[in-house]
């Protein structure tokens, strides 16, 4: 056995060969380490301590170091390290606090050499000096680090971190005397091996325990640390203050970090919990790992590069009781799977599109969209010439397509949101007000809706039927022609897509006709609009209508009636929405009051005459019958659904709020919630915070209401001592002074407090506003040019 252990294969530094392979261990591994010549690996764990040789095709067990009958906790290893100077020398850290050294050169079966039982708690890490044969360092849970001279029986020096448990210790590669230690409380300390009384430097690297650290093999003075806070940080230790130069956010707490040999910016990590993969990161590109090994089935506990100068072979041990050799060319590269294109719609209808340059350039040859207003902007990221490794081209281009100002403008949305009245007045007033607002913005259809709502829900009696407008279509006369054309040519299957199934009780052929006509129109239209977004409604012309008159275009009514009395002469089902088009044809361009609506209303207009014909007969019956107002609920519901579907969730939500209980039961909770969230989202994108808050307040959905109640805490620091205010009063706990003083009037601010984020001075909103009218400097006299947004 011992002869085999001594066998070393004479592999040259760069001549490593092999493939991705693994072998089963008998027990979970806690740590692994390689021999200097990269031919053997030692695996240590609670119940395993073995040496494997790494052959071309497989791992071969060379030596089992767990000898002896009695199980001993001395064999229960938390860490193992193989000396990089002497291939016979190993050290292990036992969970019971013992540090053991092993000499493979010993002739007996038991290779145990020395036993140091100085630590009181579990030893987390052992580390040999990179150039000094006899120097061993250990770090333990008891908060001490000890340096052993292997020629002596006891430790030569003890370093007390004065803080918590030591999680990792690493000798610096640059400085002979320096080592780094990481602690459970997030600190990293630098020590001089000659001065055990006090650390040279200390800084807080992580929030929570720092599990591991690794000195950069070449760029001396870089230290990588990994912590429970899921971060890998690279520190530049050359300056007087340790400076964080890179930071990689991983998805789980980081258990080990190891710099990749020969690659200045690459680092391998594995995690302590949950995530079983090994990642190799380029620290300059912290969002996506450059390579990933996914073989393990349980958490990886030990990773080590097989050779000091070979970046392609990585060995790993895991809790799933396997030992793996990973070959870099077999690694999966998440970048390949990442979506290299990005697409985003802006608030104002602009579209940004980023893709690989190659894609864009080939694309720009053909010009598919005629009259397209696009302003491509190209961004390129040049490849780093020093980085010859496996990067696919990262140059990409970003194009921004702007919609033209008029059609994409969302001004109407903002104005409407600001001017609508949603509560606080009687319903008819609210409706009138809102109708006026809509009207003012040339959104006649919406205005009409509000007016109708007012009529339906408030004062049926005040309406005299004589006021009815008999709307006469002024549309084109192509209608009959179109109808026949549609009926003939459009396959009935098209109808299924459409949302028009609302019109219950209609005969099938009518349905088809409806849908197909709208689809047809869409086809003629530009590609952006889809069939479902198009309001395939019939526009009712009520040209004669005076502004102040009521438009009695209540085609809800015909719809309802339809079920009772069929209207045989109708070629078309009756639709709900009214669009007031005093001069339909002139108006077409201005009609784009909803972002999805485009020019296709031109076609719909043509259908008007038929509709208005039916309307005349029906609307009379309505006012004679004096129906109860909730009779219309289904229709109002359909109206709201229609608006929401059309993309005008604003109208839907506003009506919902204004009508309140009258309509709420008609629409299922989920839909309402969906509308509310969409509307609130839109409002917030337009930074209409007050309005969005009002909507939240007025909403009746529980889920929405509580949006206002979540995260209402605001953490502030005391303006005097800059410490967090833990007390909820006006006085800071620490400096015993009133924290929120107004810089202008020197009184405590209770209520609205505004302050400059630059100098943190501020005060009463009114006072500050007044002050800023005359001066742009801070009222506290600190000389800061205050900026308030």
């Amino acid at each position: 056995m011992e002869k085999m252990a001594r066998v070393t294969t004479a592999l040259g530094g760069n001549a490593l060969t092999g493939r991705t392979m693994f072998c089963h261990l008998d027990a979970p591994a806690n740590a692994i380490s390689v021999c200097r010549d990269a031919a053997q690996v030692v695996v240590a764990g609670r119940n395993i301590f073995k040496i494997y040789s790494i052959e071309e095709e497989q791992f071969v067990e060379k030596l089992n170091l767990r000898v002896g009958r009695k199980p001993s906790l001395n064999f229960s290893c938390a860490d193992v390290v193989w000396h990089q100077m002497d291939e016979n020398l190993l050290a292990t850290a036992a969970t019971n606090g013992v540090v053991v050294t092993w000499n493979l050169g010993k002739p007996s079966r038991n290779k145990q050499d020395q036993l140091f039982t100085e630590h009181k708690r579990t030893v987390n890490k052992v580390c040999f000096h990179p150039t000094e044969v006899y120097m061993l360092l250990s770090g333990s849970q008891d908060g001490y680090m000890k340096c052993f001279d292997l020629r002596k029986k006891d430790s030569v020096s003890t370093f007390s971190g004065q803080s918590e448990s030591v999680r990792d210790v690493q000798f610096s590669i640059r400085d002979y005397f320096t080592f780094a230690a990481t602690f459970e409380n997030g600190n990293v300390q630098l020590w001089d091996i000659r001065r055990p009384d006090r650390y040279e430097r200390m800084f807080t690297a992580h929030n929570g325990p720092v599990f591991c650290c690794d000195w950069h093999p070449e760029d001396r003075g870089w230290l990588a640390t990994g912590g429970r806070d899921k971060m890998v940080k690279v520190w530049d230790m050359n300056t007087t203050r340790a400076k964080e130069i890179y930071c990689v956010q991983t998805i789980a707490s980081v258990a080990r970090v190891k710099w990749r040999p020969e690659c200045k910016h690459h680092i391998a990590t594995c995690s302590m919990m949950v995530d079983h993969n090994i990642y190799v990161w380029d620290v300059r590109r912290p969002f996506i790992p450059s390579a990933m090994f996914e073989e393990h089935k349980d958490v990886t506990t030990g990773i080590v590069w097989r050779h000091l100068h070979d970046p392609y072979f990585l060995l790993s041990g895991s809790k799933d009781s396997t030992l793996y050799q990973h070959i870099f060319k077999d690694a999966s590269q998440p970048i390949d799977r990442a979506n290299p294109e990005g697409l985003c719609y802006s608030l104002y209808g602009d579209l940004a599109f980023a893709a690989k340059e190659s894609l864009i350039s080939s694309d720009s040859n053909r010009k598919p969209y005629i009259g397209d207003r696009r302003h491509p902007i190209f961004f390129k990221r040049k490849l780093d010439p020093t980085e010859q490794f496996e990067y696919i081209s990262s140059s990409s281009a970003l194009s921004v397509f702007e919609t033209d100002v008029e059609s994409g403008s969302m001004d109407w949305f903002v104005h409407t949101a600001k001017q609508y009245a949603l509560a606080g007045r009687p319903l008819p007033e609210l409706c009138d007000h809102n109708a006026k607002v809509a009207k003012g913005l040339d959104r006649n259809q919406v205005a009409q809706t509000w007016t109708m709502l007012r009529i339906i829900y408030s004062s049926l009696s005040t309406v005299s039927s004589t006021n009815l407008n008999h709307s006469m279509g002024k549309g084109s006369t192509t209608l009959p022609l179109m109808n026949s054309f549609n009926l003939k040519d459009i396959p009935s299957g098209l109808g299924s897509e459409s949302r028009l199934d609302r019109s219950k009780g209609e005969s099938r052929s009518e349905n088809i006709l409806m849908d197909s006509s709208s689809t047809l129109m869409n086809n003629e239209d530009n590609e952006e609009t889809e069939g479902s977004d198009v309001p395939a409604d019939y526009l009712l012309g009520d040209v004669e209508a005076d502004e102040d008159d009521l438009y009695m275009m209540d085609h809800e009514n015909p719809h309802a009636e339809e079920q009772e009395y069929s209207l045989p002469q109708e070629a078309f089902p009756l639709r709900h929405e009214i669009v007031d088009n005093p001069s339909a044809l002139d108006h077409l361009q201005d009609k784009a009051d909803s972002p999805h609506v485009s020019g296709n209303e031109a076609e719909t207009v043509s259908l008007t005459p038929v509709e208005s014909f039916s309307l005349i007969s029906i609307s009379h019956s309505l006012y004679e019958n004096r129906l109860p107002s909730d009779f219309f609920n289904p229709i109002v519901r359909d109206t709201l659904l229609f608006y929401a579907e059309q993309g005008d969730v604003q109208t839907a939500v506003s009506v919902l709020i204004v009508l309140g209980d009258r309509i709420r039961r008609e629409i299922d909770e989920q839909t309402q919630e969906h509308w509310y969230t969409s509307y609130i989202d839109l409002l917030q994108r337009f930074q209409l915070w007050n309005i969005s808050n009002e909507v939240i307040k007025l909403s009746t959905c529980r889920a929405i209401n509580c949006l206002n109640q979540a995260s209402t805490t605001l953490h502030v620091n005391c303006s005097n001592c800059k410490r967090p205010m833990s007390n909820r009063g006006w006085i800071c706990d620490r400096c015993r002074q009133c924290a929120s003083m107004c810089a202008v009037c020197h009184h405590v601010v209770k209520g609205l407090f505004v302050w400059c984020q630059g100098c943190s001075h501020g005060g009463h909103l009114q006072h500050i506003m007044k002050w800023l009218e005359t001066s742009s400097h801070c009222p506290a006299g600190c000389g800061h040019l205050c900026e308030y947004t």
Partner: protein
Amino acid sequence: MEEREGEVRWDGLCSRDAATRAAALDTIGQAILRRSETIAPLAAVPPTRAADGLLAPAARDGLSELLARLLMLSKRCPFPDVREKSEAILSEVQELGIRIPRPLGHGPSRFIPEKETIQVENEDATMHALFADSFAALGRLDNVTLVMVFHPQYLESFLKTQHYLLQMDGPLPLHYRHYIGIMAAARHQCSYLVNLHVNDFLHVGGDPKWLNGLENAPQKLQNLGELNKMLAHRPWLITKEHIEQLLKTEENSWSLAELIHAVVLLTHYHSLASFTFGCGISPEIDCEGGHTFRPPSVSNYCMCDITNGYHGVDEIHASPTGSITSAESVCEVEALMEKMKQLQECRDEEEASQEEMATRFEREKRESMFVCSSEDEESAPARDVSRHFEDTSYGYKDFSRHGMHVPTFRVQDYSWEDHGYSLVNRLYPDVGQLLDEKFHIAYNLTYNTMAMHKDVDTSMLRRAIWNYIHCMFGIRYDDYDYGEINQLLDRSFKVYIKTVVCTPEKTTKRMYDSFWRQFEHSEKVHVNLLLVEARMQAELLYALRAITRYMT
């Protein structure tokens, strides 16, 4: 009842603004007086109430509750203005001829004489801040807080965690949280916690029907019953199959985040039940058993003492620091310190062999099950509480008592710091951090005193207690010599620990008094904090390990 509460708004009292409080109190006072006036003529007729204050006619019921609450405020509100005002209202009511309640005089704890606890009137500034925080969050200052305030540093962390678990953003709805609290507390028949949370549960809009027993709660909560049972009594039996069972996709399944929340709540309330019994927390003044409408002359008999298993109440009160300062008990402390010093010094010399260490752990584990209270009679679960859980017979069972061999849980393989924390924080953000802080404070809390001695390093003793508790749950530290436990913890102390941790409902005042007789009450509360946190961590470790296994 909730209807009545709605009528009288108490929430204004939680404000930090004195004016708001005063206004709120005024309204309350008026409402109460109004109601009292309508009842007063009735009450004047002797037979209706003379018989029994508690069984008064229904009309009185609502008022009694209000009065009880007012009484609580007059005694326990951290704001002096509220205290005075409520007392004034009470006396006004009394003048109307209505009997007002008076507290049953125990103070916050049955074990600790009232005069030795911190009084609400004379707390210092830090404590006052804590009280105010607690009052603002809960609308009351509960007895647990009043006892824990011996250790303000810990209390702060405790309240923060509890507040987060119950009231802040989290995957579970509020009434679920309180119901889970009830379930957990009921496992230990802790009527104190059950009563508190029944009120809170109703307050956040929980369905009163659920309170009739677990079988009336939604299936989802019923599914949690099994886990609750095991966590409370035999956490080492939890396997990934149990977790799978709860998480498997079906109508009533749990999500991982919800499950973590539930597990943290369960363990929190199991261990809080330990604290409640371990420190002999008295019923809240405004809860049943905390006050009486009888005149003081009637015997001092209290229902709750029986139901909670406080058999020792009638014992002659022997103050631990008072009368029996026998030489023997003085020696106790000295002997303990001597032992600690010895262990500190000669630990390197007599290095025990590995097998020796292993057997020491096994022995301690084995022995811990023989450590049983001598008064091991079964007390019937209190009537109110028992309906919240099924299977009353299921209790703490020691490891090998039934020939079951449970593999030892090695902390080096799954520890809170490395593994548990990451899992909790991943699934229920920030709670990992809060719990971590709480464990940390509890484990490291020290004033470097032992009874009358100052400047003592108690870390060894604290570690022994912590590890002993974990040992009872089969959790082993490789780097600990379990022989130390035997040296440092004497038998009566072990009995106390074992009882409080495993069968808290059997804790008696005698047990509390008989260990560490020379020590201060605050030190005994400190011990309880260690018990609470060690127990919570042990349960969490088992549950989280099972969840981890499920996830891999």
